[in-house]
Structures are given as structure tokens and as C-alpha cells.
């Protein structure tokens, strides 16, 4: 199986690569359109800031490329947010796979960023079998996608939000499966075996 990780100017690409290696998968880290379109699985990782990242993707036309992919795609963290239509972070127009607006957690009540292990309170969809309910996964983020029709897993921090999403061949997690211990590894395994 050919697995490609989209190479761009955002964070934790190496740790995603290492997580796949632990599962015995050798991924290509690439921004080459041909390789990405020919891949059986594409992972769209991300740590960073929405505005500058979207600018980088647009300059290379990677935004339209991602939207047009037909193989299963997994967005992670900022990847999930950029797969929505708009982000409050820098008033950024995003890729628009999920018709959702990304919001910032409100100030005051609790610490922002939402950082650490939180539980999956509600799960559904192919990557989230029922026994993953109440599993803890690792989050680091200040912006969130509200619960919507594409929500595949739900977590609460001040309010319930989309811990994971799914629509057609597009999957996304707000948390970091590559850093989420055994449940994270399971989710990656399920994605690879779709």
C-alpha cells in the first residue's frame, strides 16, 4: 500500500511518520502532486497557524489537490480545521470539505489551549468502533469544530466539539492519533485497513 504524508510548512510530520513506521508502514513525505494523487492513503497532518498554512498550501495548489483526492484522506489537528470551510484563526478561508466554521475556545472559564488527554464521549463511523468510547486521546488546540452532521467522535471542553469527523473518503481527527497511545494506534490501523 502506498501511503503519502503531505509535506508542508507545518509541524509534526516526523511523529506521524514514526507512528506509521511502528505499524510497519513506510510512508512517503511529499508535496509532489503525482505521488499524492497516486497514493492509496493520504495523511494531512498539521500543527501551526491556519492563515500562513493555508497561504502556503494555496501557493502550491495543494488545497485544490486535497479536495480532489479520491483515496481515503486523514486530516490531523490543524489538518481537520483546514478541511473545514473557514477558520476564525486569522479569518482564514479554508479547503471546504466539511461545511463548518472553526471557532476559538472562549476565554476565561478554562485554560486555552485545550492541552492533554481527554475522553471520546460519543463515537461513530468506521474509525471509531463503540469500544473506543471513553478512551482517552491527546489534544493540543485552541480552535475547534462544533458538533455537526459530519462529527464522528465527540469530546467536551467547555462545550462538546468534534474530536473527529468523516464525510465520504475524508476523515479527520482534532486529536493526535500518533500521540494517543494504544487507542491512537488502533485508529491509524483502522484508517490503513479501510
Amino acid at each position, binding site marked *: 500500500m502506498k501511503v503519502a504524508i503531505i509535506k508542508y510548512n507545518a*509541524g*509534526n510530520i*516526523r*511523529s506521524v511518520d*514514526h*507512528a506509521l*513506521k*511502528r505499524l510497519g508502514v513506510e510512508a512517503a513525505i511529499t508535496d509532489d502532486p503525482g505521488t499524492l494523487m497516486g497514493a492509496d492513503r493520504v495523511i494531512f497532518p498539521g*500543527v*501551526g*497557524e491556519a492563515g500562513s498554512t493555508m497561504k502556503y498550501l494555496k501557493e502550491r495548489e495543494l488545497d485544490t489537490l486535497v479536495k480532489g483526492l479520491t483515496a481515503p484522506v486523514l486530516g490531523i489537528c490543524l489538518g481537520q480545521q483546514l478541511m473545514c470551510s473557514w477558520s476564525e484563526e486569522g479569518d482564514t478561508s479554508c479547503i471546504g470539505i466539511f461545511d463548518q466554521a472553526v471557532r476559538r475556545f472562549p*476565554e*476565561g472559564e*478554562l*485554560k*486555552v*489551549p*485545550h*492541552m*492533554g*488527554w*481527554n*475522553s471520546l464521549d460519543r463515537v461513530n463511523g468506521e474509525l471509531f468502533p463503540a469500544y473506543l468510547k471513553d478512551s*482517552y486521546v*491527546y489534544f*493540543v*488546540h*485552541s480552535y475547534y469544530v462544533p458538533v455537526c452532521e459530519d462529527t464522528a467522535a465527540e469530546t*467536551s*471542553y467547555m462545550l462538546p466539539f468534534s474530536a473527529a469527523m468523516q464525510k465520504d473518503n475524508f476523515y479527520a481527527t482534532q486529536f*493526535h492519533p*500518533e*500521540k*494517543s*497511545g*494504544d487507542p*491512537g*494506534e488502533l485508529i491509524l490501523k483502522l484508517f490503513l485497513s479501510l
Partner: protein
Amino acid sequence: MLAKRIIPCLDIRDGKTVKGINFENVVDVGDPVELGAKYAHDGADELVYLDITATHEGRKLFADLVRRISEQLNIPFTVGGGIDRVEDAELLLSAGADKVSVNSSAVRDPELVDRISGGFGNQFIVVAIDAQWKDDRWTVFVNGGRIPTDRELFSWAREVQERGAGEILFTSMNHDGTKNGFACDALRELSQQLSIPVIASGGAGKKEHFVEVFEQGMADAALAASIFHYNEIPVPELKNYLKKNNIIIR
């Protein structure tokens, strides 16, 4: 619910794990990659690797070790020590570090915090602060607790939050190595003054201290070294104890 985090800290010198008592009398306690994997398996929520020689002796960054750690671990880890420039942080990021921690270098060059958070996001930068309570004031120290500065804990913590720090790792030098408990009053004050998470460090000796640091100290995470390295309080035992005491724990 968001869980409180338990974070073993591995001090690294010359590629080996060490733990100093009051930052002195360093004792070798094992291979950093192996020890990290063991902690992850035991249920540690996160790890911190600090290159304790880097700051004052200007040692080369330990990017190769970081890469090996990243290959092994399926939980997040922070690395620190001698990160003076954005390029140092970028090198560690590309090696697979989830976060970097800066301490003395941020005091010397506060804009480093802006530059790292601007380049890689707030979540990528932890500002570690070593401070000592003396003459009615928490004085910030640099160079591994060797040199006092004119900075004060709370104002410095607020400043780095403003500059884009994603978390504060506060070590009370009065408590570190004593095993008499964390600096809960200062931690509580810090937590109330800040909107970013606070990691408590220094003074863990008993399981009860962790209940105190989460309840009274309002810490988001607690870090310790020797009690874990010497297996005085194994991580699974500590987590069970905290659960029994109604602390939300993974």
C-alpha cells in the same frame, strides 16, 4: 473531561538520564529511550527530556536522541536545554519533538518566545521557570538554578504567556529535591493569573503530594523525576491512587 497529566522528567547529560538533588550530585539512572518507553507503557501522560548540560556548557543539541525517542514513543514529549535560536527549535521539531521548552534563553532573549510561537504555534513552546522564594519574593533563576535574575515569577510568567508560550513549567527551587511536596500556594497563584496550562515541578515525594498539587495547587500537570526513576512511586500505582481520590486521570 480533560485529565490531569503525570509527567516523568528525564534529565539528560551526555546522552544518559540523570537526576540531580537540588541540581547537584548527579546520579546516572539509565538509557533515556528505554526509560521513556517504559514510562509510556506504564501510563505516563507525557515526558519531558531536559538536556541539563546544554545551557551552561553550550553543548550541542541532542537532536539524534530526540529522533530515537520519537521513533519509540506513542505519547507526547517535550525537549529542552540550550535552545537559544528558532533554528534550534526547528531542528528538534523536525527530529520529532512535540514541544520545546526554553528557560534561561527566554530570560536572556524574551523575543525568542515570540519567534518560536510565531513560527510553530503556541502549543509548541513551553516556558520553564526556575524560581526561589527568598525575601518575600519568587526570584527567577537561570543556568540551571545557578544565577539569580531581577525577574519575578508571576510577572515573568504573564509576560511569556503574552509572548505566546503555550504552557508554563514552574520549578520551585525551595521544594525541588526535598520530597516534601510541591509549592502549592505559588502554583495556585500562577494558575489563577494565567490562562495557559501550568505544569508543577519540584518536591514530589509521596502520592498525597499529587492530590495536593491538583486540588490546592490547581496544576494542570505534575512533573517528577527521582520518585519515578527509583521506582519509589510507580506511575500505575500513583494513577490508581489519584483516581481513588477523585482526580480525573487517564
